[in-house]
């Protein structure tokens, strides 16, 4: 399972970074979203990967439990990144309205 998660995080981050470096605002937003997905998966993986383990109850001892803290962290991180993406979207639309261009610098390269 670890290689799958690792590859997933790597692919998401790689695509995200590439998109963030693109000149269009929409690409930047999608890139940032991909990076935040990668980060969320990464936080999960830091609680060690376990399948079907309970978070609280169970008599098997502490090592058989899934770590609940990263799950709580992911929840918080999702909420925050979601809100920030929405905010960035609004700013992008404002920028599009004010400049008439969806380039991140507000003007096309040639001008």
């Amino acid at each position: 399972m670890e290689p799958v998660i690792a590859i997933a995080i790597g692919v998401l981050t790689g695509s995200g970074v590439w998109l963030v470096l693109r000149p269009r605002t929409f690409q930047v937003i999608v890139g940032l979203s991909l990076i935040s997905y990668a980060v969320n998966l990464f936080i999960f993986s830091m609680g060690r990967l376990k399948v079907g383990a309970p978070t609280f109850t169970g008599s098997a001892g502490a090592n058989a439990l899934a770590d609940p803290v990263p799950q709580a962290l992911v929840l918080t991180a999702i909420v925050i990144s979601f809100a920030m993406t929405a905010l960035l979207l609004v700013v992008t639309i404002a920028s599009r309205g004010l400049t008439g261009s969806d380039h991140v610098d507000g003007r096309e390269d040639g001008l």
Partner: protein
Amino acid sequence: MSWIQHLILAPILLPMVVAGLMLVIDGRSGRTTAALGVFSTFALLFIAIVLLVQASAGGAQSAVLVYQIGNWPSRLGIVLALDRLSAMMLALTALLATAAMVFSLARWHKAGSFFHPLFQVLLVGLNGAFLTGDLFNLFVFFEIMLAASYGLALHGSGHARVKAGLHYIAVNLVASSAFLIGVSLIYGATGSLNMADIASRIGDLDAHGAMLFRVGAAVLGVAFLVKAAIWPLGFWLPTTYAAAGPPVAAMFAIMTKVGVYAILRLGLLFTPDGQGNVLAASGLLLAGGLITIIYGMLGMLASQAMARLAGFSVLTSSGTLLAVMGAGNANVFSATLYYLVSSTLAIAAFFLLIELAERGRARADDVLAVTLEAYGIVYDEDSEDSREAGAAVPAILAILGIAFMACALLLSGLPPLSGFIAKFAMLDALLDQARNGPAPGSAWAAWLLVATLVVSGLATLIAMMRAGIRTFWPSFEREAPRVSMIELGPVLVLLALCVGLTIQAGPAMRFVRHTTEQLAERKLYMDAVLKKPVVTPQDSAANGPALPAGARAPVPPPPKKEAAR
């Protein structure tokens, strides 16, 4: 527990409640909202001063005050910790907030919607970041601070602000991702998010865990260095700060210092004695800081607009702090803290002053007109004039000129104001290190830094003089700007504080020296947090210290962190 112990919570709770109230009673810059905002900032100033007195009681041996939210034991719950450094930063924030708030009342808070609630939320984030003793909570408070700052940076709208805001938000979102990766790596390695607890576990890590921890700390360091705008991670700063409205830019003057604070706090806490900063290697800090100073210096010389000049002066100040932190020993550290306070106050005053000084000129008016137009607000010329007419200050150009001169002296570090004392203290400590330093490498670094600091002071002076001559000695007759007392007052108060820092330099230096001594004793902070007993109503002694030392990593703590949302 007496009320004074609960007061630690107030710098976070008060602005949060006030911001909520403002939204309930319609936060669009009504009279009530403004009154609430003023009340909140002044109350915060009072609270911050009380906390500062509390935290510095006992001179060199002052204790770290710890507050366990919800009365959970320190290892499980979220703690707030107040030591001299956080108290100092809280007081500095409150001072800037009061000045910016009063200044904004003249006109800027009406340049767009929801200025006051956003301002209060910014204060929640700043105060929380300075107080929290929990790594993930630090992230949450950073995000609260940044979310509010995005709104404030865009306050007033307009082309320049939206463009700069877009870059600012994108860069900071990427930095936040790095922050999260760093936090989770550290959690993965140590199994804790409590800063003191992490610090106590570093020694027990195996080779694999230690490596993970170091990587996490380094990633975290990158996130903080973006906030502190080190070269090459700081290109977003001058444009954003120059585009932001003056009261907002004045508040932003402390936001780069949050990054510096975090590097200082976590770096000292997470690094076992006698090793370099684990968040950012000292060589890296020194080199990055030096280049930041030079970049800021060149930027200042190249700037045409005063607001841009001020933006680059933030870079120089931030670079100075980082470079000196990278080069220095304990003596240098305390001088750095003094410089931090002095330069933050001076830059904030400068940002406020720029708007007043340029008001008579066409540019500032243009910006404002465009702003209002873009926002669909019809600018009521008459009422504005009649409101300001009664309070307009006479001989305004002379006063503004003197204030500008004071800013120039403070920023370039010339006598007789506190900028000079700060720079002199830093140079003295660095030269001392160069002479008696343990290794030839550190002496070389100290000499390089001394030279850069002196040259950057000269460059700042040249840039400031040129801007001053252009603004105050124009070849054509200029109309004196109309400035009301509530706009001029905050500038003068901030500058008077710098004068106060100069006159009371002895006590201030003593304070920062004790602060660095307290910071260097990482055991003090760890013990204060980890050995703090929970309070039981019947019998506070029975419960004893929070947890026995044996109950560590394997037991996952309850998902208390959800409360952080």
